[in-house]
């Protein structure tokens, strides 16, 4: 199935059918075998009412584009804590054990403490989100994540009113993440969001993908997913959440401030100083030498949900 960028949201009926069909496929166990995705296919068979009932058809779920094959999404990614190559993390993270896992909650928050992960996320409404994922290196995927909206967790933790930003930190443990023995990055990896960005409905905490627990190489046991920003914002294997009143220093900005900003919103108008961000290579259901480049969309196609956060800001300056 080809990527169809001209597939629009206004075809509600089609989309619902597609959504139902998706859910039907999932129930039938077909989706897990990878590669199959209902698009906005009006010929799609409407699923039974039973199948449709449990379907979560949030409008921001990507339904009209091929889902990236699970084998690609789990074997082609950046995770410098394990390796600097794309296939390295999947080869080298096998022995990593993400259990038990604790998360330090600190800073301007009512309940600073070290939490067991299970306790931390208990009660957060679980759902599936199908998001585009756009790497700053100009490749992209469409990934079904499992997890919960970040705002559920933040509300539960109750930050103080002075908190304007939230900062995340990846595990630093060179024994378990061997590439941390090399000083490629000032470890630990750090990322952050402005509080209103973090509270946006789209900001997501993933504990799984493709209906399975998050693989180690993809940031087990818990990671951030911010679909309208470049992939490096979506920090993996989180061990600390810190609420602050100052803009956090995120790792890539720290390494190369002229190339990577704090906001890192996907923006085809603002090129990386060394390469264009106007288009991307989509890694879809099947890798092929002949897949055409596709146009990169402002905010990765999520403008209607997030553009208001940046009203009045010069996005060339705050890239």
């Amino acid at each position, binding site marked *: 199935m080809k990527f169809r960028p001209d597939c629009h949201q206004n075809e509600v009926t089609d989309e619902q059918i597609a959504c139902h069909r998706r859910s039907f496929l999932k129930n039938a166990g077909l989706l897990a075998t990878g590669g199959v995705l209902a698009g906005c296919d009006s010929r799609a068979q409407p699923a039974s009412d039973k199948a449709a009932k449990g379907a979560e058809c949030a409008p921001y779920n990507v339904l009209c584009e091929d889902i*990236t*094959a699970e*084998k*690609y999404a789990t*074997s*082609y990614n950046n995770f*410098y804590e394990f390796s*600097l190559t*794309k*296939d390295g993390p999947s080869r080298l993270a096998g022995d990593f054990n993400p259990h038990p896992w604790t998360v330090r909650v600190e800073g301007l928050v009512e309940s600073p403490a070290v939490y067991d992960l299970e306790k931390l996320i208990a009660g957060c409404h679980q759902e599936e989100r199908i998001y585009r994922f756009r790497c700053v*290196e100009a*490749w992209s995927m469409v990934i079904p994540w499992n997890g919960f909206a970040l705002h559920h967790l933040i509300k539960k933790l109750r930050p103080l009113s002075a908190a304007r930003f939230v900062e995340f930190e990846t595990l630093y443990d060179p024994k378990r993440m061997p590439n941390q023995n090399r000083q*490629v*990055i000032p470890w630990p990896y750090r990322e952050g969001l402005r509080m209103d960005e973090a509270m946006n409905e789209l900001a997501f905490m993933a504990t799984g993908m493709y209906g399975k627990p998050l693989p180690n190489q993809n940031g087990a046991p818990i990671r951030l997913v911010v679909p309208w920003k470049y992939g490096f914002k979506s920090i993996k294997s989180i061990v600390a959440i810190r609420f602050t009143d100052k803009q956090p220093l995120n790792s890539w900005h720290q*390494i190369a401030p002229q190339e990577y900003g704090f906001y890192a919103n996907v923006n085809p108008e603002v*090129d990386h100083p*060394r*390469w*264009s961000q106007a288009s991307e*290579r989509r*890694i879809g259901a099947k*890798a*092929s*030498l*002949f*897949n*055409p*480049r596709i146009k990169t969309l402002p905010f990765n196609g999520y403008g209607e949900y997030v553009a208001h956060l940046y009203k009045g800001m010069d996005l060339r300056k705050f890239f």
Partner: protein
Amino acid sequence: MLQDAVSRFNQRFPKVALIILLTLPFANLVYLGLHDDLSADPVEYVLHYTGIWALRLLLLTLAITPLRQLFGAPVLIRFRRILGIATWVYATLHFAVYLSLDLQFDFAHLWQDILKRPYITVGFLAWLLMTPLALTSSNRAVRALGRRWKKLHRLIYLITLLACLHFIWLVKADLFEPLIYTAIALLLLFYRLVKASR
């Protein structure tokens, strides 16, 4: 008669063997392609693969003269031309893949890339400068150009530096690999500087 044939074979065999050897990286790429084994991002894979082989062959070409002199093996000169042409062939493949599979023959995009992206500017320049060298590699061209041939082919030193810059400027964070190649390149160029200054 038979002796002639044997000596001709001896003469040609190493060259033919080298040519076959030099097609192996390409054959491997075709094999990987036929087995759907070009990673999740095949265009990127093929780009990197052809580029890195062009650079390897370039360094190998440059290594011939020092190896001849250091190990007293003048016979190696027989292989230099083949290596040089193979370098150009892989570089041309690299450029062709970029233009066709990556840019889909969008020449406006190509032009913008060349003007705006320093790593593409130097990479393109390296390929461009390499082309007259490949075209003047026949015995006839060598004879026709006389002393100018050597002058022209000194461009290879500049091309080497451009190719290394091309690699260094395109990586995101890990400079290790491009710097290894650059170190070898600088060593090979330094050898010539020392030789020339004596």
